[in-house]
């Protein structure tokens, strides 16, 4: 018969409530979650023998049976409840009780996982092997047929304990919380600009020029680079309001070649009307300024 007094609780309120009903008000002094095995030692024994008069509401039984995490969990519970030593595993008793629970599950039409039936078969097999008379020619060191089941039970017990330990480990969002500190308003993300190699720039220029030549009839004149650079430099030196003396645009230290480059740049800029030159009279100093639309 079923004895539901010391069911392990899965911590859900429903199950705990039902448990209390079932024990006819008997106080459950143990907290089952923290301790794996002690329940059966408190008030189990008195009820094991005579559970017949115990009224079990069907839905309550259902809740209780559903809290087992599988056949190993159920077996472990039965063993601990009876204060059996796991290492001696009284197969006959445990099998009988196990089958009672399985029958109850079937009666309640619980979705009975195949694992429970498989375990029933394993128990029956072990039982039959233990009942068989030992043949004299068999070696003495033959393994106890219970050994494998005992090993699995011990291993499962360890996992069960580990799961409980893990559940008690300080956990984010439950026991500890992440600290969120804002940055002061002048913290701005730093943008890392992509790397460019000089070869890429040169190649891009060649490609652009090649394409241009393909669809343009006139060839694009290429001034010497130095002239174009000097044009940029001169433009940046001048402004459109004040005139600067022309000689300020030449750097004597550059030598003749440098002066020629500057001169070519000035001519090119004049041609493109980017700068204006004025001369007050013959042999007077020449002054330059940036071209501007108004004067044009």
């Amino acid at each position, binding site marked *: 018969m079923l004895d539901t007094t010391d069911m392990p609780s899965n*911590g859900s309120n429903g199950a705990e409530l039902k448990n209390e009903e079932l024990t006819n008000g008997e106080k459950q002094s143990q907290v089952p979650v923290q301790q794996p095995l002690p329940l059966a030692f408190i008030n189990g024994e008195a009820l094991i023998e005579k559970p017949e008069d115990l009224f079990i509401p069907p839905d309550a039984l259902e809740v209780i049976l559903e809290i087992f995490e599988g056949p190993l969990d159920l077996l472990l519970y039965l063993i601990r409840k009876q204060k059996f030593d796991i290492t001696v595993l009284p197969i006959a008793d445990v099998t009988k009780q196990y089958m009672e629970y399985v029958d109850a599950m079937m009666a309640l039409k619980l979705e009975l996982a195949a694992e429970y039936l498989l375990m029933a078969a394993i128990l029956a097999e072990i039982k039959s092997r233990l009942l068989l008379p030992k043949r004299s020619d068999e070696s003495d060191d033959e393994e106890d047929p219970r050994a494998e089941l005992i090993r699995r039970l011990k*291993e499962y017990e360890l996992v*069960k304990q580990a799961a409980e330990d893990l559940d008690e480990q300080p956990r*984010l969002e*439950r026991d500890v919380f992440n600290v969120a*500190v804002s940055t002061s308003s002048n913290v701005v993300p730093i943008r890392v600009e992509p790397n460019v190699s000089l070869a890429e720039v040169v190649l891009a220029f060649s490609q652009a020029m090649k394409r241009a030549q393909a669809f343009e009839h006139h060839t694009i004149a290429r001034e010497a680079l130095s002239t174009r650079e000097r044009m940029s430099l001169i433009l940046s030196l001048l402004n459109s309001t004040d005139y600067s003396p022309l000689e300020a645009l030449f750097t004597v230290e550059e030598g003749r070649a440098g002066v020629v480059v500057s001169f070519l740049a000035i001519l090119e800029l004049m041609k493109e009307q980017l700068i204006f030159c004025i001369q007050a009279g013959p042999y007077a100093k020449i002054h330059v300024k940036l071209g501007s639309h108004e004067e044009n």
Partner: protein
Amino acid sequence: MKKINTAQLKQLVEAAIFVAEKPITKQQLKESVLSEFTVADRTLSKVINELMLDYQPRGIQLIEVASGFRFQSLDALSPWLSKLWQESAPKYSRAMLETLALIAYRQPITRGEIEQVRGVAVSSNIIKTLTERDWIKVVGHKEVPGRPALYATTKGFLDYFSMSSLADLPNADAFENMAERIESDSTLKVLNEAPSQ
């Protein structure tokens, strides 16, 4: 490379750990906020240790988890701090916790191996939830028929449970011993295969 004095270094490291959105490692500190300074590893460790001590009596703590250093609230304050949020922290089923524990203690492990130990099928939902929470991940496939996925825990798992490595798992050695015992006992292994077929 510029020099930085210890007081400034401490302020900068403190602020960086605070404002970083995730735990931050010493290496990451050196590559970001400290990139323009010459800071010896020893100095950095010393400063972090000092910070840990500074915060010991306070409402928040500086701790090291798997993916670096982070500040977190004091464990003991959680009953009141949790009132800042409408929703309570999610509870996880025993099936989920047992599956997670097995993956944590026995990684890498296949779903079949988990099912063998637990004696019941592991629902796909559990694996999915654990994966979505970034607590477990597939780290490979076992070279047996069907090539089942091998699961392991992630840094996110360690971070979430305030651990810096798997060695911080409670009772890690108990598991170690059990595993060794099982492996060395070959007779049990032979038996193992008979009933489960």
